[in-house]
């Protein structure tokens, strides 16, 4: 091999490694960074990629080099063999030891990052998150030492810069509560309560996604995380407590059936023009003409009667998760809207 070729090869390896590493740091891989932890996890990803790039480039370069240099050509004798090299203890030790060292260092660093990301904060706002086919229910338990006692099944509204502690569980099958902007997720499992902590730093509206296959409506199980200023949040809280917008079953105004239909994700499977339901997994409710009793049975015990041609997949948990008033309001609304 000519010396000029060797130099060209080395230059190609270095240049492509540097280029790929630079690209890794320059490219926008992730959604918005909502929390201090988001930045740490993004940084960890970039570090892991940057460390891996030279390995990959060297492996490919070595393969290409061998193919160019050691490939037989027609002028070679037909029974040409390679050199009988059986191994080299020194080289084998190096390529066992070096990756081992790199792996251990990366592992320890990742452990440190994990500890920082998951660190407990002082006086967090505690929110119980309960997954259910195919919605998320939130119960605002307390803010530091102040009791809140507000429940909602629509948007998750939180104040900016407030440490949050979610306590996650499920009413039925396993779900997973993922906030991509926070880079964090945790499974919701019935019978277990698992914590998830982060502090949102930016106001705005962010995705909440269920990432554990939870049944036929899994892909419709998305929610919104609304991070608002503290003043706006206090206003929102007041409105919730007075039973205004949230539809939480308070004696004052009475729950709103349409609101319950929407916030429980019914429209993900059932078509109902009056509440913008457009799903096709379950039978359409437009013009279904069911009586109040039939509707009530179909909600509380959906397996009792199955509409022709539809699978028996409707969650049986709404009888438990809706209060009596909410159920009454929902049945009343459906009986009218679905005439």
């Amino acid at each position, binding site marked *: 091999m000519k010396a000029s070729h060797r130099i060209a090869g080395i230059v190609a390896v270095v240049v492509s490694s540097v280029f790929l590493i630079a690209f890794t740091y320059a490219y926008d*891989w*992730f959604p918005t960074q909502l929390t201090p932890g988001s930045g*740490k*996890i993004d940084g960890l*990803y970039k570090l*892991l990629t940057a460390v*891996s790039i030279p*390995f*990959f480039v060297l*492996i*490919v370069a*070595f*393969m290409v080099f*061998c*193919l160019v240099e*050691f490939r*037989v050509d027609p002028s070679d004798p037909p*029974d040409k*063999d*390679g*050199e*009988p090299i*059986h*191994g080299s203890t020194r*080289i*084998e030790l190096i390529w066992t030891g070096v*990756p*081992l060292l790199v*792996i251990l260092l*990366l592992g320890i660093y*990742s*452990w440190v990052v*994990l500890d920082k*990301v*998951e660190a407990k904060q002082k006086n967090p706002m505690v929110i119980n998150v309960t997954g259910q086919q195919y919605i998320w229910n939130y119960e605002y338990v307390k803010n530091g030492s102040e009791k809140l006692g507000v429940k909602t099944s629509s948007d998750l509204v939180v104040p900016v810069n407030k440490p949050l502690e979610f306590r*996650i569980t499920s009413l039925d*099958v*396993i779900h*997973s509560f993922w906030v*991509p902007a926070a*880079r964090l*997720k*945790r*499974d*919701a499992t*019935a*019978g*277990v309560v698992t914590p998830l902590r982060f502090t949102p730093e930016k106001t705005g509206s962010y*995705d909440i*996604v269920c*990432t*554990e*296959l939870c*049944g036929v*409506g*899994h*892909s*419709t199980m998305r929610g919104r995380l609304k991070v608002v200023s503290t003043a706006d949040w206090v206003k929102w809280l007041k409105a919730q407590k007075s039973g205004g917008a949230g539809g939480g079953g308070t004696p004052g105004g009475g729950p709103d059936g349409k609101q319950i239909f929407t916030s429980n994700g019914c429209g993900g499977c059932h078509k109902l023009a009056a509440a913008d339901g457009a799903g096709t*997994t379950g039978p359409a409710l437009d013009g279904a003409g069911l009586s109040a009793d039939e509707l009530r049975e179909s909600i509380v015990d959906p397996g009792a009667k199955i509409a022709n041609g539809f*699978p028996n997949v409707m969650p049986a948990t709404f009888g438990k998760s809706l209060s009596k008033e909410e159920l009454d309001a929902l049945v009343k609304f459906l009986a009218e809207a679905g005439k």
Partner: protein
Amino acid sequence: MAVTLRSPGWYRAALSTLIGAAFGCGLVVGLRALFGWDEIVQAESIVSVVLITAPLGFLYGIGCFDYWIHWAAGRPTYVDDHSDHGARSWKDYFRVNTDHKVIGIQYVVTTFFFFFVGGLLAMTFRAELIEPGRQFIDAQTFNALFSAHAAFMIFTFMVPVFAGIANYVLPLMIGAPDMAFPRLNALSFWFLPVAGVLMMASFLAPGGAFATGWTAYAPLSDQAPMGQTFFAVAVQFAGASSIATAINFLVTIVTMRAPGMTFWRMPMLAWANFATSLLVVLATPFIAGSQFMILFDRALGMNFFDAVQGGDSVMYQHVFWFYSHPAVYIMVLPGFGIISEVISTHARKPIFGYRMMAFSLLAIVVLGFSVWAHHMFVASMQDWIRIPMMFTTMLIAVPTGVKIFSWLGTMWRGAIHLRVPMMWALGFITMFVLGGISGVMVAVVPFDIHVSDTYFIVAHFHYVLFGGSMFTIFAGIYHWFPKMTGRMLNDTLGKWHFWLTFIFFNLTFGPMHLVGLEGMPRRVADYASEFAAWNAIMSFASFALGLSTLIFVYNVIVSWRSGKPAESNPWRAQTLEWQISSPPPIFNFDEVPTVVGHPYEYGVPGARHGIFKHPEPLAAAKAPVPAGVGDDD
């Protein structure tokens, strides 16, 4: 007719399947009537039992148990003169046959059939994913499609296809006349179509096919429609098949090596299958257990996984992954063996660091059992266990790295023939390194918390299982096809197949890394519109990827019928299977080989791996008609 129905075969199988079904039905209905239960005819419980009794009836009818039943009943067992060895026409491949070469081909062809079934399912749901919103598949069917795709690819393709290749090649490589337990070997194969047919039949079940992913997480799978029962039972048959085969491989490797073949003189493929079989025997009972628990939950109301009744669905995940992580190595270690054979042969070099290659296989076996909970970093389990599992998982990169570097070392100063099997081997290394890198990334807990259950994971395991395992399978098929069929595959078509698959594989699965990082979850029928462009690209690339495999099918069919006849040793390899005719004689070795050296002594003057001495006089008297098998293919 009476004779046809009494002798093993498809007629008797049809009859005994019906008898099995009727027996299962009668058992359930009878018992329910006896206990005076409400619904005497209850579909779910009947199906649970019939799915077990009908396949057993089929296996009896086709003839898997005849010899054992004769023996157990004290009736005269027929003298095993091995006259059923070999396949004289294509029809022989549809009978119970105890010849490992016939079984090997039965395995490979059957598993590839299920590979195409799985591939078609994938292209169907990729078509649904071209745009956000609903196109033509409802959510229930979508979930069924990706669940069945994974189940077919894992249980009826990736795991057994390696058993098929090794079935054919391994006894030849170690100089054995057959596997240690030929009748068990036949039974292992026939379990496999049973598993596949059960999974296909689940699409006809009320409520549709199983739709809870191949992972079948409880309690979702406890509550799922009847198709789930089909899955739980199919996994038992597939699992029994792999356990029986693994025992067979272990005993064959330990007891049936040719004289002179010490463990340190075994070809790497034998080592790889030894390691894999250890994994299969130790791990597979766990998935069998997990699916039996689901079955009992569904059929008997055991409440293993119902939290309200004191059950624990996190435990399901532990038991499930205790098999299903080692399963990843079950699906790639035999491929490592194939790659070692292919690179050494086509680079004409001894394996670099042979002993380290063997030790790293065993290291992966041991470490493979200590990493299962890395699938559960976001599950509701104890936090502390994540840290040790992260370190053990990352550590697996070390023995895997040793293998990759040693393959590169094997190419160094070789005399490289860039033939089609070699192209697949090098394609494998490139893709598998990428899959390994993303594997280390997802082993890192804080990063995995973000990407767990997203398309990043989908990308990662397709790089490992398609770019990794699937490429090794193609390398193996292109490498041993001449030995198996006596015909050469067409080179030009092989190269087209490689390059098109390589390109469209990357276009299909590469972008999945990006959408996963940006926030697209896996297993969704619908997605946010920001991912639409990439999804369209991935879908169209996946169709092209599917089409590229048709080149392979065409090549195999045409070459098998009328390809160039293969010499006994077209690659001038040194392992034993290449020292006999292509295809091999009925009993593999007309003369017993004696192994006198290492299997890869390329470039060592005068070195020999095996020599053939004349057989013992007794064996010579019984020597069968050689070669010419399958000549009417």
